[in-house]
């Protein structure tokens, strides 16, 4: 079985590198709870490159407005059609923010409208169980960003499988931890991230 490598998408516009520790935080959890062979650190892959298709799970985040190039857009469409799992997370956690507005517009242009992921979807139960849907983040609870708790995630699906997951809950802030930092926490906040990876690899 090929080794799992966490990939962060680099795109032409915006600050794609805004959550540098997130891959390690998720990989740490992955090693703690699964026997999946995984690389200890993530890689950065250009959204417009052929290397994108080497990775079954790709994370994209940022604060700035997102404008995909034609090549990035075509690559993303192909990636999703071919069964990849692409996560887009709004680092601003702000539904009026430029990242949210621009990236949703890009998704609309590329795939059509996003669907709401029901809170009893198996992505919330495929490893750790989250009865109420997507776990809230401390940023939401502290009232930062748009001062909203976003109840649901959104997705583009293919044949009933989520292929592109869009979140404006700002997991990129919540999970941007060095693994060592978790020892000060009573509950690992990155657990939902493992659900995403397990879903991507097994569904």
């Amino acid at each position, binding site marked *: 079985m090929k080794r799992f490598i966490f990939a962060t998408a*680099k795109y*032409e*516009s915006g*600050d794609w*590198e805004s959550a*540098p*520790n997130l*891959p*390690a*935080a998720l*990989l*740490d*959890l*992955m*090693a*703690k*709870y*699964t*026997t999946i062979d*995984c*690389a*200890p*650190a*993530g890689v950065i892959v250009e959204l417009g490159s052929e290397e994108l298709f080497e990775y079954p799970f790709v994370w994209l985040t940022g*604060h*700035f*407005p997102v*404008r995909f*190039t*034609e090549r990035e857009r075509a690559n993303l469409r192909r990636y999703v059609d071919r069964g990849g799992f692409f996560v887009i997370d709004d680092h*601003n956690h702000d539904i009026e*923010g*430029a990242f949210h507005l*621009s990236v949703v517009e890009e998704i609309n*242009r590329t795939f059509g409208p996003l669907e709401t992921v029901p809170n009893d979807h*198996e992505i919330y*139960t*495929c*490893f*750790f*169980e989250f009865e109420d849907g997507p776990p809230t983040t401390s940023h939401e609870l502290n009232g930062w960003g748009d001062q909203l708790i976003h109840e649901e995630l959104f997705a583009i699906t293919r*044949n*009933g*499988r989520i292929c592109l997951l869009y979140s404006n809950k700002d997991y990129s802030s919540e999970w941007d931890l*060095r*693994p*060592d930092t978790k020892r000060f926490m009573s*509950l*690992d906040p990155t*657990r939902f991230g493992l659900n995403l990876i*397990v879903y991507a690899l*097994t*569904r």
Partner: protein
Amino acid sequence: MTTASHDLAILRKTRRGLLLRAAMISLLSAAGVVWLMLTLSALLRPLLPSIAEWLNLLLLPAAAAVVGVVLWRHRHARSSLRVALWLEEQIPELGYSLVTLADGSARDSSYAEKIAQRVQSVRSRAGWPAALSLPGVGWHVLRAVAPLAFAAVLAQILLATGWTYNWAFVSGGAAVPGQRAPGNRIAVLQGELTPPAYTGWPTEVLDNPERIGGLVGSQVSLRGEGEDTRGIEARIGDGDPLRLDAAPQRSGWVLGFAMPALPSGLLLTDGDNRRVIVLEPRPDEAPQVRLTLPEVDAERRETTGELELAASLRDDIGLAAGWFEVLVARGPESGDYGFSEERLFQRPFDTAEAELRGTTELGNFNLNPGDQILVRAVVQDVNDVTGPGIGYSETRTIRFLRDIPEADVEINPAPPPIDESLMSLRMLIRDTERLEARRPELERAVFLAEVAPLLMHTGNIRVKVQGFVDEASVGGSFNVPELLLFALDEMWEANRQMTIAETDDALVHMRNAYDALMTLFNLTRYFLRGEMLPAHAEVDEVRMTGEEPVHATVRSQREREDSVRQQLAAQLAVLSGNLDATAEWLDEHVALMQVAALRDLPEAAAALEGLSRALRQGESLGPALAEARAVLEGPAQVEVGLSGWAPLPGRSE
């Protein structure tokens, strides 16, 4: 043969005649009932389809019932004695002599002979019932089934002429002379396709179309024959039934709808008649726009000056307006992100192609170093039906550099720069090795002079490593990584050896320190320049140490989901295996395949259109089927190597 035996033989023959008559009447009556019910079913289907269905379901029970009734009415033929009784009833003059003869009670042959003679006497005088002769049986059968046959023939005539159909549907009960046969009210259709007004395109006449193509939102009007719309149903795909109205100022009906956004089948049904018309919408293309200025992404140091913008715009029908959209992103330095959006140089257009151009002052945006501007051109077309269509250009990014050295690096964040100190240690080791190699040929004074700068550099690196140790311990509060302490010790030792110009000994300690720092670099991402790379996970150390409860659901294999191409190939195979089906079935099957292809596999639509044309024109389907199969299944795959049944080379079996 005695007279009694002769009479008994005639009795048996009479019984056989009665049985034959019962069998023929029952069979013919059953057939007549089935015929009548089938005809009634066909007649009632347009008006009362549920009753027609019931009639079809009741065919066998009704036939069985008819057979049962007829056999019950002929139950007197069950035995010779009952036949004798029946004859006694028909010919009272027999005076029970035949029954007496048939029941065997007259065992005395002479007495039996007398009875037989009496029967003979009556027969010669009154004769057997005419119904028992062969012509009589035929006539009787004919008379029994004639009403049923007449009713069935009448119903068949009504069905064929359509008289009852029109009587049932036409208001006033008057048939319309010259009307098409009922059920064919959807056979001939005329109409128009009117493109949306914003296009200015003329109306297109539709002459009994099998396929209607036009812009999404075009109004389609179809007219058919018949005085009434009852019984006719039209729907697009799986949608709700469309409304049909009486055609104004002429006989017939009219159907109007807007061209849907996706290729669909317009299904028309009228009783048993079905017809699928392929709707092939053509979307109004979104306008195209190309940003010509700024030509590429750029970085600028000055936040003032002019920004020149230019774009070329184009649309397949017409442009309505265009503008530049400028997004200013602020705060990457402070972390307090903010955005503002502006439209610049918006202007209307009334052509299909145009240029948009303008120059603006950067000072208007109140820019600070570290901010960035994203520019794109946006264009809107004249589509007011399904639009407006909006086109966006690529986005150009202009970054305003901060006044720090890192701002000189390229736009996209680079990997962490190679550490100066580490590079210096590597350089120090290399330079020291070179000096050590030249040491035998150098004079002592020269050698010492060359050692001096290396000694200073060694001291600097030691101080830097000491700084890392201090930073890690935070004044002695935290343990310092052993490797870092080891590297510091080694640098101290190297420094001491360099002080006494023992370069060979110093090299050993420098290399030890280098190895330790490199290991530390890899393990903890400790960057000597002070900037840390993203963390990495200690995968092997933490493997399976998690303690939180896990709720992993059982995985289930998803059902195979064929691609559109595979689905169409399977449907084509079904079609190929049913070429002897009705023309209507073939037409509908191909039309629905066309709709699916137009939606999801446009490259196969032309081949299926060819197949549809061949069907309509009664041409040989072979070439069209082969072409469609080639498009859907691809070229034949040649497998290199032996086939499954080929003998091995050189084997003589």
